[in-house]
């Protein structure tokens, strides 16, 4: 009798401990899931219309509309392009850096600290630095610029010709190049940290065996390092894809809320940018876009897990 009593008392107590967390989660996590789905399924929903008593037709109208919306297609295209380029490149680079770090002793800690630095900085603030580095100051039709910026100066020193990377009149390709560079710069630290952690836990015997067999460095890398690291590689690829599809701050950091150079605002807008653009006036559309984003992230994660199940060596 007493034991059950004690357990019951404990049950009640456990819920009390959980109360603050559960109450907040109910309001800011559970309700949003329900309400965002609801808004996405009501035709032309907006909070203003609802408050003034409008009744909305139920259906998949918002989803159909969103996917036919040119601005959404552009955002989706930009996001896909950024993700498809930055994830493989940054993963490969991070892997090379992690392997290099793992095979040196002298100065290793200093290098490790340097490579981790971008992680602790502010994405918006350093985006502004990238803007400063690539920007051409002054100039215009027929007027010489007063400064071509440091990156163009370096390009010129190597014999290239200055390019309008981010300023008025720049091409979308040039904008994208800067953005991709910045996203990779930003993505490296986390990937290096995870991969280096993985490398350090790899059993050294595999390498010694390979060395005895006279395997080349290249062969050791592809046949031993990559397979043994595959769970970590799968992990950084999945989180990379998720982060890539949620790209937003890097664009704001470099180009500001305009999401593009002054002559073509919105040119570099992303999926998340599209959601925030519509959040104030057109919540039905924003909700549909958020759910599409969720579906894409879920699908990419499942595909990644499925592929890695086949390829990953545990």
């Amino acid at each position: 009798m007493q034991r059950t009593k004690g357990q019951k008392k404990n049950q009640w107590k456990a819920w009390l401990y959980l109360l603050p967390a559960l109450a907040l989660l109910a309001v800011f996590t559970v309700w949003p899931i329900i309400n965002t789905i609801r808004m996405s399924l009501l035709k032309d929903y907006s909070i203003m219309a609802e408050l003034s008593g409008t009744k909305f037709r139920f259906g998949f109208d918002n989803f159909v509309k969103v996917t036919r919306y040119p601005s959404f297609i552009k955002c989706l295209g930009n996001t896909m392009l950024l993700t498809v380029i930055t994830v493989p490149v940054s993963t490969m680079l991070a892997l090379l850096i992690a392997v290099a770090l793992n095979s040196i002793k002298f100065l290793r800690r200093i290098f490790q600290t340097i490579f981790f630095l971008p992680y602790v900085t502010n994405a918006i603030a350093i985006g502004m630095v990238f803007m400063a580095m690539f920007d051409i100051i002054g100039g215009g039709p027929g007027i010489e610029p007063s400064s071509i910026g440091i990156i163009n100066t370096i390009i010129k020193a190597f014999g290239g010709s200055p390019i309008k990377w981010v300023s008025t009149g720049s091409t979308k390709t040039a904008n994208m190049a800067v953005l991709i560079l910045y996203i990779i710069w930003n993505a490296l630290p986390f990937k290096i940290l995870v991969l280096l952690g993985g490398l350090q836990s790899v059993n050294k015997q595999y390498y010694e065996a390979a060395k005895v067999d006279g395997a080349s460095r290249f062969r050791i890398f592809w046949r031993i390092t990559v397979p043994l690291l595959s769970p970590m590689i799968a992990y950084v690829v999945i989180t990379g894809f998720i982060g890539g599809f949620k790209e937003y701050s890097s664009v704001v950091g470099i180009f500001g809320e305009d999401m593009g150079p002054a002559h073509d605002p919105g040119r570099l807008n992303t999926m998340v940018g599209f959601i925030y653009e519509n959040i104030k006036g057109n919540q039905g559309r924003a909700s549909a876009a958020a759910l599409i984003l969720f579906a894409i992230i879920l699908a990419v994660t499942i595909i990644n897990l499925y592929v890695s199940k086949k390829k990953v060596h545990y």
Partner: protein
Amino acid sequence: MAEPKKPAESVSQETPAAGSLTNMKYKSIDRVSKMQTVGKVFAQIGLYTFLTVMAVVVLFPFYWMLISSLKSFNEYNSMKQTFWPRQIQWNNYAAVFANKDLNLGRLFLNTCIVGIVSTILSLIITVLSAYAFARMEFRGKNFLFGALLATMMIPGELFTVTNFLTVASIRNTYTVLIVPFLVSVFYIYLLRQNFMQIPNELYLAAKVDGTSDLKYLWKVMIPLAAPTLITITILKMMGAWNSYVWPNLVARDTMHTLITVGLRNAQFQIAGTQFVNYPVQMAAVVLVTIPLLLVFIFFRKYIMRGVSRSGIKG
């Protein structure tokens, strides 16, 4: 040519140990080990070159931000880019503090208030829920914990669409900046894992001594889990410092603007022109970045722990 010779000499000094071998064998082994050592040296040179180049790329934006913040506008804005300021201009920093549009002092204050209050409240909520999940028995515990973890899959934008409407009546308050993000499932998970490592015997011993649950939590669990709590504190403070999207949506008045939002939206134009005063802007970026770098230098271990833990789930 001089470099490969050096290791070759050191090899021939070591090889007399193999003196019992026949001349033929001795020579071929010597040649192989010579080649191996030479290869090793080249590989090491290659590794260090690669790491140094990458380190320069990673560090360059920081370097450029710092030296640009100390240049005069005329020096920055000229065709001849300098890698060290001709004359160090500390008054760029004075200009940042004098910038009424930026109002840096107020931004620091707002961000500190939001950061400190949300960290304290978040710690209390996290400790209580992690304790319930780690030490208490109640019906549906595993299901509830699984459901919480599952919400981590959902992109935050999906919640934001609804939360933006939920907080409509309390925009431009500290509450709206603090409350929606108090519960982090990831922190609960992190702390629960830590709590579970503390042996149950301690709890039973405390029970025999008649210690209450809360006292046990306060006197035993919290001190033992201190490193995780420090990690959570740092990540939470950094979160307030770096957050952009939510505060930009819901709190844009002077009294509640957070630092990153303020930095991005401030004007750094030179009066009456279209020229951005990059040196002053970079000085502002430095002032926002330095606190983060200091936190990183002093709490490196805790930050890395938090990040790598998030890397190896389960």
